[in-house]
């Protein structure tokens, strides 16, 4: 199946003619917390084409990690479907789910916490192979050497060492190797570089891009840093308080954000340029609690454009430009090719 994707052509939208690798359909995740219900993910739908990278941005508590974990069935799905290559993961259990899971992997934010410090790198990376039933030691050794080399580590130097001996950047390389050893098709990257220093962050972003090309990966790339998301994504989705606000091809989203929340996020990014004007703080307040999300549009309590309708009616995702979807009653009119955003 790998290699079927055409990576030279950026995929404009997940709903093209070919069946998407992943389709998330009206997915909801609720948690029970002390008698209350936390609506972490509320009716989210999107698709990712084979070979595509979909960036997912949002602030803490917006549900992006819950969404990632629900796709991999690491947390319980409350309602909705997750179709991976046409198979609904939410209906699978036991052996069929385990079989399919080899084709989906996840990389977490904290590389040091995601590796057991008292295990050798050799054992950490061999474990997925053992679970997948690769019994031949020679074959396992070859695959471990290959994947470690691919992520820029010297197998001879690292295989016998323990995870605690490595720095954050090296641990993230090891975690990436562990995710790639079974040659998955979809890798969910949940804030893979936000715990890393600037100089290491660039190395890992470049590595993920190289691995995507080498292994023919499809990525769901979650981050709160919009510049990082822009660097890797073909399309970007923006989440706020459990809902999708906007989803669009990367350049379209950054040049012509249609949702006021997307515009707010873009304006809030500090720029590494002393002459860039610091915009007057458009941001008002902080995200409300997902225990009691506002009625209607969930962003309305912080939105400078909110109207009465925003309070009463939940906005649905609708297309404002080709492949550019926004859930807003009063979208920014610049969403079109004629009016680029001033910087």
């Amino acid at each position, binding site marked *: 199946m790998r290699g079927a994707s055409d990576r030279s052509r950026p995929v404009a939208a997940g709903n093209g003619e070919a069946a998407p690798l992943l389709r998330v359909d009206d997915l909801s995740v609720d948690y029970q917390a002390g008698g209350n219900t936390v609506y972490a993910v509320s009716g989210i739908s999107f698709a990712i084409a084979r070979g595509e990278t979909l960036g997912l941005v949002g602030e803490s508590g917006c549900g992006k990690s819950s969404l990632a974990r629900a796709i991999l069935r690491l947390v319980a799905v409350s309602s909705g479907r997750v179709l991976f290559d046409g198979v609904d993961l939410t209906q699978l259990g036991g052996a069929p789910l385990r079989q399919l899971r080899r084709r989906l992997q996840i990389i977490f934010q904290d590389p040091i916490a995601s590796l057991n410090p008292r295990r050798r790198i050799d054992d950490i990376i061999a474990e997925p192979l053992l679970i997948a039933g690769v019994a031949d030691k020679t074959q396992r050794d070859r695959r471990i050497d290959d994947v470690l080399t691919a992520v820029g580590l010297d197998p001879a130097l690292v295989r016998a060492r323990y995870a605690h001996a490595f720095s954050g950047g090296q641990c993230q390389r090891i975690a990436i190797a562990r995710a790639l050893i079974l040659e998955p098709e979809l890798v969910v990257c949940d804030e893979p570089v936000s715990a890393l220093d600037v100089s290491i962050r660039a190395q890992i972003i470049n590595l993920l891009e190289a691995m995507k090309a080498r292994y023919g990966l499809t990525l769901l790339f979650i981050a709160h840093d919009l510049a990082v998301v822009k660097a890797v994504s073909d399309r970007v989705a923006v989440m706020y308080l459990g809902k999708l606000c906007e989803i669009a091809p990367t350049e379209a989203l950054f040049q012509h954000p249609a949702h006021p929340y997307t515009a707010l996020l873009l304006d809030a990014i*500090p720029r590494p340029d002393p002459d860039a004007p610091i915009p007057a703080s458009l941001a008002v307040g902080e995200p409300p609690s997902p225990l009691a999300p506002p009625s209607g549009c969930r962003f309305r309590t912080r939105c400078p454009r909110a109207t009465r309708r925003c309070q009463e009616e939940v906005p649905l995702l609708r297309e404002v430009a080709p492949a550019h979807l926004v859930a807003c009653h009063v979208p920014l009119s610049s969403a079109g090719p004629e009016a680029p955003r001033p910087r």
Partner: protein
Amino acid sequence: MGQAIQAAEAVGAGTPPLLSIESVSVELPTRRGPLRAVDGVSLSLAAGRTLGIVGESGSGKTMLSRAVAQLLPASACLSGRVRFDGQDLTALSPQALRRLRGRAFAFVFQDPMTSLNPVLTVGGQITETLKEHLGLDGAAAVRRAIELLAQVGIPNPEQRLKQYPHQFSGGMRQRVAIAIALSCEPKLLIADEPTTALDVTVQAQILDLLAREQRRRHMAMILITHDLAVVAGRTDAVAVMYAGRVVERAPTRTLFRAMRMPYTRALIAAIPKLDAPPHTPLPAISGLPPDPTRPSPGCAFAPRCASADAQCRTAAPPLKAVDVGAHQFACWHPLAGAP
């Protein structure tokens, strides 16, 4: 621009600087031998100015700020001098230092959840500071605490005063921490990664708040961060640290426009650019930061530097200025600088 140069040049500008750090080194004992966290750093800061200190983890930026406040771990060994407002802090008794902290200088830390006491009300924590340092009585301290919370943008301060830190969001907790830091009108605020734990929209609000209060109070500020984008628009001068040393120091605009140290350039280049198209490869810095318990005789950045030669590996370049005193860098083969 002129003002920025003055800020960095505070020593030569006639008025003595509020803070001057003179050849400060900090050594920490570790199982692998002594770790030189800060290595011969000299910096100065004038009243009302902001100095950014930028570096990656382990570069010594936090240890340096602790050395300024004499808040180092007991096992740490400090050398050099820290002059603050005419006094040598390294020569003061613990009692004298205690009187100075809070009133003379205050801290805002990265994680407001750990810098606030979870089992005391927010009001209790602010009034404690006011009573201890300013000698206010209970009622006056409560009135002042309400004023302070309102100033840092906390709605309903009378009610919020009775609440515990866990009842506040991350951004609101950081506002409380800032209110406590400002409560005794310090002359210097040291903000150590004050927005790193916060979301981007909240980060902008907190940085705006710090800038506004700084202007209002004519307070000096040291803004410590790993994020060059945070210092770009909000500091007068920036010092870049690597492996315990200041490797470049310049007025902020000069640093971004005409950096001379290859590490500074590499650090700026490694930030993904918002105006670059997707999938543009990033110019990453290869290799890893050096092991601080195994210092090299040469430039600490040499193993990762494209222009390093034999001299770089054997002799550490001193931090010095070439033309104007405001711009200093430590490099044997500096970049060309301004065109």
